[in-house]
Each structure stands twice: as C-alpha cells, then as structure tokens.
C-alpha cells in the first residue's frame, strides 16, 4: 500500500505517517508531532531549500495541522508557493492555503494578485485551481478585485470553469449580497447552459436568491418545472444517474426551489402538481437516494398550495417511512409528519403508535426529533404530558446546547397552555432547578412578570392563588442547596412581593428564609441584592400595615455586613433598607405601595414637576438656569457680545449672558467660601449630563464654534426661560443619575428601585429648600410626627449616596465628605460657567457618562423585568402575553377540575378521548401486539445494507 504513497514523498514523511499511525496514546502522538514541528521550523528557515523539498514540507505542514497542531509558522511558504510558475507547485500551494487560511486571514491580501493572474491563465486547470481558492479565501473586501474576471469566466469554453465561476459568484453572494446583485441576469442565463453540471450549479445561487425574494422569480416556475420534467424523464446523459435514479441531486435542488416558489401561490403551485405526482409515483423507495427525493417531495407538497391528492400520497409515504425498520427513515418520517400536521392535523392520529415508539427509542437523535414534533403538536389538552416528558428528558441529558433549547421550549409551552397555576409554578420550578443557569435571564423576568400580572386583569382571585402557590412552593425550595442563581433571584423577588400578601406566613418567617438564602449564596451579589430588596419590601409592608417590625438578628447582621460591602449597589440597598425602616407608616406606604409593581411609572424627562419650584425661586431672586451650550459659549466673552449685537433675536441668550457680572450673589457669601471648592465641582458635570447629552465634551477653547452650537442645538429650554438655579438641577440630576446607575448595572432591578425613585422625586422637590427653610422640608417630606434631627440625618445619607455615585464616576472621592454641605449651601453657589472655566478637566471628564444613554438603557430592561420606572416602553409588550394567557386560562381552568394528565396525549392524538384509556395501557397493548408478532416488522430489511458495506 505504502508504495502508492511514493508520489514524490520522501522516506522521512512516510516514516512520520507510520510512526503516528503506530502511536499508542495521544501523548505519544503529540510528542511525535511536536518533534516534527521543530524539524519543519528548522528546515523552512534554512535559506536554500529546493522547491520540491518545500512542496513536501508543505504537505507535512498540512498533515501536522490536520492532527490539530498549529502550523501557522509555515503559512507564508504556502502563500509563496502559489506564486510559482509550475502547476505542480501552484496546486500544492493553493491546496495548502485553502486548508490553512480562513477568509479573514491577513495573508490573503498577498494571494489576491496571484489569483488575478491565474484567473487569466490559458490553462483551464490553473483557472480551476484559482477558482477553488477564490471560493474559500476571497472575502468581502477583496471581492471587487476578482469579480470582473470571475464574471468573464461564466462564458469560458470549459464547463468545469463555468461551473466553478457560478459557484464562486454564489459564494460572493453569501459573503456580500450587494456585490453581485447586478449579476442576477447572468445566473438566469446560466440556467440554460448546455452542460447539465453548470445548470445544476446555477441552482445553488438561484435557491438563495429566491429564498430572499420570491416574487421576482415567479416567471421561472415554468422553466424549473420543465427542467424537472426532463430530468425525471431521463433526458439527461446516463452518467448523471445515481443508483438508477435520474440525476437525483438535481431533482432535490429543483424541488427545494419549487417549494419556495409555490409557497402560498395557488397559480404557481398548480403548475407543479403533475410533475410532483409523477415523481412521487416513480420514485424508488427501496434506495436511500429514492427516499431522499421522496422526502423532498413531501416537503414541497407541504409548502405549496395544498392539493388533496398529493397530500394523500405524502401521507402514504410518511407512513411507509414510519413503519420502516431504518432509523433514518423514521427520523425523516417524524420530521415530515411535523410538516404535514400543519396542513392536515388529523393525520397524526393514525401514527400515534409510531410516534410513541420513537419517543421511547434509545436513539437520542430520534427522540429529539420526536420532541420537535410534540412541540409542534402541543395544545392545552396535552401540554401536561408533553412538558413533563420534555422535562424528564431535559434532566437526563448533559448536552448544554440542547438542554437550553428544550428548557426554553418547556417554558414557552407552559406559559402558553398552562392548565392550572399549581402546575405552572411546579413546572417552572423544575425547569429552573435543573436548567436555571442555562436559560436566558429573560425567561426568568418573564416568569416574574407572569406572577405579578397574573392571568387576566379581572380575575383577582386567580392571580392571588397563583401567587400564593408560588410563595408556598418557593418557601419549600429556597432551602435546597445548589439552586441556580437565576432561580434564586425569582424566588427572592416573589417572596418579597407576595410573601406576606395572603397572611399565611409571618414576616419574620419569610425574612428568616431570605436571610438564609442570602447567606448561603454569599458569593452571588445579584442574589444578595434581590434578597435585601425583598427584605425591604416585607418590612415596609409590615410598617405600612401598622405592625411593629422586629428585625431578626440574622437580618440585622446581614444588613450590617452589606453596609460595608464592596459592591456599591449592595451598599445602597442596605442603606435604603435602613432608612426606610426608620420611617413612619404613612411615608412607607407611599414609598413602597403594596402590590404596585405593575403600576406604570412615568418619567418626566422635562422635569416639569419642578416648574413651580423654579418659578418660586426665581421670584425670590435666584439665578435663572442657563443651558450648558450657552454656558460654554460664554467662555469668550467679547466674542459672544458682538454676536449678540448682530442677532438681537436671541433675547433670552442675551439675558443669560449678563450673569458673569455677578459671579457671587450677595446673598450668602459667608457660607459659600467654605464650600465652593469642594461641592460644586461634580455638580455642574451632572447638570451637563442631564440637560446636554449631545455635548460630549465642553472645552474652553471651543468658543469659536459656540455660536454655531447656539443656533443649531434645539435643546429644549427646561423652564420657560433659560434660567439657572444651581441647586435644582444638581439635585435632580444627581437623583436621576443614581437610579440610572443602579438600573444599568442590574438589568433585573426590581420595582423597589422605582419606588426609591419616587422617594427621590419627593425629596428632590424639597431638598434645595433646606438651605433656606429646613423646617419646611422636614414637614413635607417626613410628616410632622418624626423628629427633625433624624430627618436631617436621613437627608444627609441620601445626599451622600448621590454623591458617592458621582465620586465613582468622576473619581472625586473627596466630594462625598462635604456632602452635607451640598444639601445646605447650594443656593449660594456661583454660576457654573465660572466653574467650567476654572475646572475644565472635571467638566470634560464627566460627560463621558451620558445619562440619556443610561436612560435608554433603563427603558429597555423594563421590558424584561416588570414595569419598573419607564411606563411607556414596557407596556406594549405585556398585553400580548397577557392576552395569550387569558385565552389559555379559560380552557386551562376547566381541565384543572378534571385533571387527567396521562390521558392528555392520547386525547389529542385520538381526537376522541373516549377511544383509549391512557398512554400506559396503550403501550402495554402495543407491547403485547409485538410479542404476538403482528406488528409490521420492516418491509425492507435490506434497505441500507450498503450503508455499512
């Protein structure tokens, strides 16, 4: 044998192959290959190697790489070899580069020139070699370099070249559809090529084109039908026959195209009926390829406008497939059945036995295909059996890819068809328990939303039942070790929202469980965050209900631990919890309304709720707010002035410009002096963030363009007049920023966040007034009852949090220390334009965090979780699922009463529940039948003998 390998190969190479063949272990093989790599490296770097030696080394490189080792050190030699004149070497070079390089490799640019040259070669074999390389290596960037030549080759006299040129264009189309869109007429022309091979090759690009745009190819239906007819009538050369079938590969390709063209088009479909019927009748169902054509016919028949006769013969073929002995045919039969039941659902009935057989089969592939079919057949009557089966199978496999898929299918089916709350919750528990880390977080958020929104808007009892059963089962599960993080998040959220809702469990019981969970998963920050928030909710519900809250010692220690957490998010949640617990019932009720997670929370981006306050401040003599673009424009004063004189229309701007004349308001100069260097630094940056997202960086030197900016920027004037009040924007922006921050970092933030938001809205209105009227603030924010010093400290915390976020972002840690001052002094701050001038570095660094971007980010995740703070965006999605659910719940409810789970599959399959008792009996009966030997035992036992030959 090895003598055949003597084609120019040295003994050395043959020895290498032999020794690798004889290697007893993977380690030994690796050793040999590594030694070979060293040899090759040394040989390739030596200056004088002959070309024929080099050719052999390339072959050895290919071999090394085939064995899974890196041969990239030799790629350049392969590239060089493609430049060689001799076809012998050129071919080897092309073979090596097509095997070594992917289309995005850097070296490809070095080959393009050679390819261009070779495409022009007189020798058609050289052209063929180049075209092979073109198909593999030319990427989007290099297509234009060879495209004209490839198009020219469509008219080459050798059919092999034409064929490869067509395929190369097909490849280009896949890479960059735009590059060949003007060449569609060429494909149409090639369809009439004299050579059947070229015609067949043309079907590939046409199939892709038709997939994308059916309508512009409807005129070809007649041609395709004619070609198919000719092929089926054996008009092609005999050499195209394969296992006595006339050109089956071409037939299959044509059938694929016809099924696209006939889809939903009665007129086109009618032209195909005759030929489809002919092929199905003539097809040799004893050979593999015959069945391949038959299967393709079924696909086509199911796709085009239905024809009863054809559907009938399709059904016959399917039952032949299913009854056959070969697993391959069963697999295809199941697949085809899935197609056919979409058109005639009743056909499933006669194949129920076969389907169950396949489901029980030890062959994994067949089983999965059957699950595909069941998934398509699921209805509210059989959902329980199917999903239970799916879950059992899901638990039994290790393949992550498929596990993920089947888990999300289970969730989907359960959501659509759930017959009862109980069942739904249990199913979800199972799915999450076993595949919780694999399913998309969206699925978890969906589950939370379903539990929160319930089945329908009217049926409140059903909703609370759903929640109670969820709470009950979660309390049972929460203690189990090794729960997936996603599942724990759901559990914590649900327990926080509804744990105490039905009064069945005491707050201390649930908080205890939550603390245990947080402790058991101390490394998972997200779970801890969910747990703390849940604790906060439960405590605030308790307070709101007028009960006294006794924090369990473990809760206390948890909160204390989190107050010092490295995660700012956890810290913040802990502080919020601490703060809320100290409030009175009325305030808490407003902050944490019971069961309000479905309420929409509107975000007023214009901050119009501040209008009254701003107006008031203005009347009291505060400085009006100046939008940032104008402020940056102030940097060059003289320039600005002359501007103003030229265009006096901008009266507002003119007013704003007067500001610098009073840099320090005379009102409270004494306080200012202490705070000015610390406090205001980050604040203008926030102002910039919120009100001027478009300005990415405001630079002092930018004065030249400032006039442009002023005209072009259509920034809304927030408060009627371009007013600047340093306090108002700073606090409000700080708050917005804070909540943005939390949300973007944790997509899945719960509704607490939005409630916190509410609080901050309240406080925002009032905080600025601290400076002038502390008493007023205290009274309106916390009610008259509580003591004022506590209020004061709370406010301080609030602000310090705000600022510490700011510090995170702008790296100004010292700001936090003066946070208390920030709340007290701000009114007397100097206008920010001065600051902009004074601290350009700070101002320009801050805008890199664009709060509007964050806001957008905040709007998106709301769809995932619950309503959250966005309102508008999250809503439109919800009704779909809810309405779906509402539909199901009706039918689902009725089944709950009867509750006949094992029956369900049968019920559906047989259409008449009374016919069969249940699946088990059915299977037993089937087994008996088999023992007796009545079952059809393979009509073609020798069908695939050649497979193994």
């Amino acid at each position, binding site marked *: 044998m090895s003598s055949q390998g003597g084609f120019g190969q040295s003994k050395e190479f043959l020895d290498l192959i032999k020794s690798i063949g004889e290697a007893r272990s993977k380690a030994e093989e690796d050793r040999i290959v590594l030694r070979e790599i060293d040899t090759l490296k040394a040989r390739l770097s030596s200056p004088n190697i002959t070309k024929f030696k080099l050719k052999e080394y390339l072959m050895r490189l290919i071999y090394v790489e085939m*064995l*899974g080792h890196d041969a990239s050190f030799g790629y350049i030699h392969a590239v060089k070899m493609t430049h060689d004149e001799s076809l012998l070497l050129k071919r080897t070079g092309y073979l090596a580069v097509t095997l070594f390089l992917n289309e995005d490799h850097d070296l490809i640019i070095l080959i393009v020139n050679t390819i261009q040259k070779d495409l022009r070669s007189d020798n058609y074999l050289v052209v063929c070699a180049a075209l092979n390389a073109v198909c593999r290596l030319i990427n989007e960037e290099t297509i234009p370099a060879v495209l004209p030549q490839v198009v020219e080759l469509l008219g080459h006299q050798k059919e*092999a070249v034409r064929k490869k040129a067509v395929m190369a264009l097909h490849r280009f189309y896949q890479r960059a559809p735009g590059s060949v869109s003007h060449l569609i007429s060429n494909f149409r022309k090639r369809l009439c090529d004299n050579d059947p*091979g070229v015609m067949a090759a043309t079907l590939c690009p046409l199939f892709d084109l038709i997939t994308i745009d059916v309508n512009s190819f409807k005129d070809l239906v007649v041609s395709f039908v004619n070609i198919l007819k000719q092929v089926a009538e054996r008009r092609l050369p005999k*050499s*195209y026959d394969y296992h006595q079938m006339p050109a089956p590969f071409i037939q299959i390709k044509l059938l694929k195209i016809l099924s696209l063209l006939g889809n939903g088009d009665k007129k086109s479909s009618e032209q195909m009926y005759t030929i489809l019927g002919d092929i199905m009748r003539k097809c040799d169902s004893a050979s593999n390829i015959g069945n*391949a054509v038959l299967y393709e016919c079924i696909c086509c028949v199911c796709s085009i406008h239905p024809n009863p006769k054809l559907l009938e013969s399709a059904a016959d073929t399917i039952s032949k497939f299913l009854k056959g002995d070969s697993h391959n045919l069963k697999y295809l039969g199941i697949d085809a059945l899935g197609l056919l039941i979409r058109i005639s659902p009743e056909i499933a009935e006669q194949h129920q036995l076969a389907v169950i057989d396949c489901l029980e089969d030890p062959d994994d592939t067949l089983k999965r295909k059957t699950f595909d079919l069941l998934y398509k057949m699921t209805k509210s009557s059989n959902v329980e059996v199917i999903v239970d089966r799916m879950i059992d199978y899901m638990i039994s496999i290790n393949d992550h*890819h498929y596990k993920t898929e089947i888990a999300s299918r289970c969730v989907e089916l359960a959501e659509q068809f759930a017959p009862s709350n109980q069942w739904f919750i249990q199913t979800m528990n199972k799915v999450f328990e076993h595949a919780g880390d694999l399913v998309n977080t969206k699925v978890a958020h969906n589950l939370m939303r379903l539990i929160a929104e319930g089945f329908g808007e009217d049926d409140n009892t059903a909703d609370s039942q759903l929640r109670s059963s969820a709470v009950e089962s979660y309390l049972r599960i929460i203690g189990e070790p090794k729960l997936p993080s996603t599942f724990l998040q759901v559990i914590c959220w649900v327990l926080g929202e509804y744990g105490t809702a039905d009064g069945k469990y005491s707050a201390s019981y649930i908080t205890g469980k939550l603390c245990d969970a947080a402790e058991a998963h101390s490394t998972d920050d997200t779970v801890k965050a969910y747990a703390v928030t849940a604790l906060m909710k439960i405590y605030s519900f308790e307070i709101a209900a007028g009960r006294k809250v006794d924090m369990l010692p473990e809760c206390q220690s948890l909160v204390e631990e989190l107050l010092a957490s490295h995660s700012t998010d956890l810290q913040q949640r802990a502080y919020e919890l601490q703060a809320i617990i100290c409030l009175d019932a009325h305030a808490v009720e407003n902050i944490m309304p019971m069961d309000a997670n479905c309420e929409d929370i509107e975000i007023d981006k214009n901050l119009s709720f501040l209008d009254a306050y701003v107006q008031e401040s203005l009347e009291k003599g505060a400085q009006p707010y100046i939008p940032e673009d104008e402020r940056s424009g102030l940097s060059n004063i003289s320039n600005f002035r002359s501007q103003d004189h030229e265009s006096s229309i901008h009266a507002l701007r003119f007013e704003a410009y007067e500001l610098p004349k009073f840099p320090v308001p005379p009102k409270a100069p004494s306080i200012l002096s202490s705070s000015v260097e610390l406090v205001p630094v980050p604040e203008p940056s926030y102002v910039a963030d919120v009100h001027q997202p478009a300005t990415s960086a405001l630079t002092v030197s930018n004065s030249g363009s400032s006039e442009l900016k002023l005209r072009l920027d259509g920034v809304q004037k927030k408060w009627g007049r371009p007013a600047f009040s340093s306090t108002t924007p700073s606090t409000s922006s700080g708050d917005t920023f804070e909540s943005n921050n939390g949300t973007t970092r944790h997509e899945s933030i719960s509704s607490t966040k939005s409630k916190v938001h509410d609080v901050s809205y309240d406080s925002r209105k009032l905080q600025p007034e601290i400076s002038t009227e502390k008493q007023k603030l205290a009274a309106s924010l916390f009610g008259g009852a509580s003591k004022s010093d506590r209020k004061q400290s709370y406010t301080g915390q609030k602000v310090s949090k705000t600022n510490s976020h700011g510090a995170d972002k702008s790296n100004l840690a010292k700001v936090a220390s003066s946070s208390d001052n920030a709340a007290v002094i701000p009114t007397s701050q100097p206008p920010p334009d001065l600051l902009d001038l004074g601290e350009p570095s700070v101002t320009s660094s801050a805008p890199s965090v664009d709060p509007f971007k964050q806001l957008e980010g905040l709007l998106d995740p709301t769809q995932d979780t619950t309503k959250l703070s966005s309102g508008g965006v999250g809503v439109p999605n919800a009704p779909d699922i809810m309405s779906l659910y509402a539909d199901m719940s009706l039918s689902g409810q009725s089944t709950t009463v009867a509750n006949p789970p094992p029956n369900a599959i049968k019920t559906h399959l047989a259409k008449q529940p009374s016919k069969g008792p249940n699946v088990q009996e059915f299977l037993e009966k089937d087994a008996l039948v088999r023992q007796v030997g009545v079952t059809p035992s393979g009509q073609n036992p020798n069908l695939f003998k050649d497979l193994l030959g």
Partner: protein
Amino acid sequence: MIHFVLLISQQGKVRLAKWYSPYSQKERSKVIRELGGTILSRGPKLCKFVEWRGYKVVYRRYAGLYFCMCINHEDNELETLDIIHHFVVILDRYFGNVCELDLIFNFHKAYYILDEILIAGELQESNKKTIERLIDAQDLLVETAKEEANLISKLIAQATN
C-alpha cells in the same frame, strides 16, 4: 450548505478535514473531539444523523472510517448520506478498492478529489465521469510537469558536469 467534511478513523484519528465555514484552529480541535466522541459511540442500528449545536451532522461508516458532514438544519439528510457515498465511490474508482491506508498516505489526493466534488460547501458535480476526467487531466499535467522538471534538472546536471 455543508460546513465541514471530516474523516475520522475508528480510533478517533482525523484522516481528512475540510472546513467550508470559518473555524479557528482551536474550534476545529474542539469540534473534532466533540463529534468524534458522539459519533464513534453510536450503535450501528441508530440513525446516521446527530443534532449538534443547532446543526446536523450526517455520518456514514465505511469499514473503520467514518465520513461526517455537517449540514444546516433545513438540509436533506438522506441526500447528504448519498453525497458521502458519491465521494467514496469516486475515491474507490480512483484508488481502485480504496482502503484507509490509501487515504492516510495520499491525503492530498483525497483533498483534490473532494475539491472537484464539493465547492464552497455545495455539491458542484454529481456526474462521476466528469469528475474523473478532470482529475485525470490534472494528474496528467502534474506528471508532465514532473517529467519536465526532471529533464531540466538532468540537463542542468549534465551541463554543470
């Protein structure tokens, strides 16, 4: 579309690997390991298809050699089985009673043949005779090139002597 063609021996050794979709060297080894494990362990009576990462891998065993092709979900598995067979028949005709050793020592020839059957992941020619004619033409050309080269080197040798 065919994403890759693999020839794996019963011992899990790769005899030929052709990738029509981009895979890095690392991914390639991973794919081979994964698929080798699944396919070699399947019983003879089971289907010759494996669902894998959203694709389907169709395989067929000839003696101790497994021919595998990875195809899209919507492709026809039986057709792919016959594409494999088509390839094997042509190999058989070319080598004359092809066996694993032929492919081990002449893997480059197998690559050249495969290049005439599949291109860009699609079947380019189903006519055996056309393919044979092309491959013969190439071999002939290579032979002449080789002879010429020998002649030249002989001449050079004579001239220098």
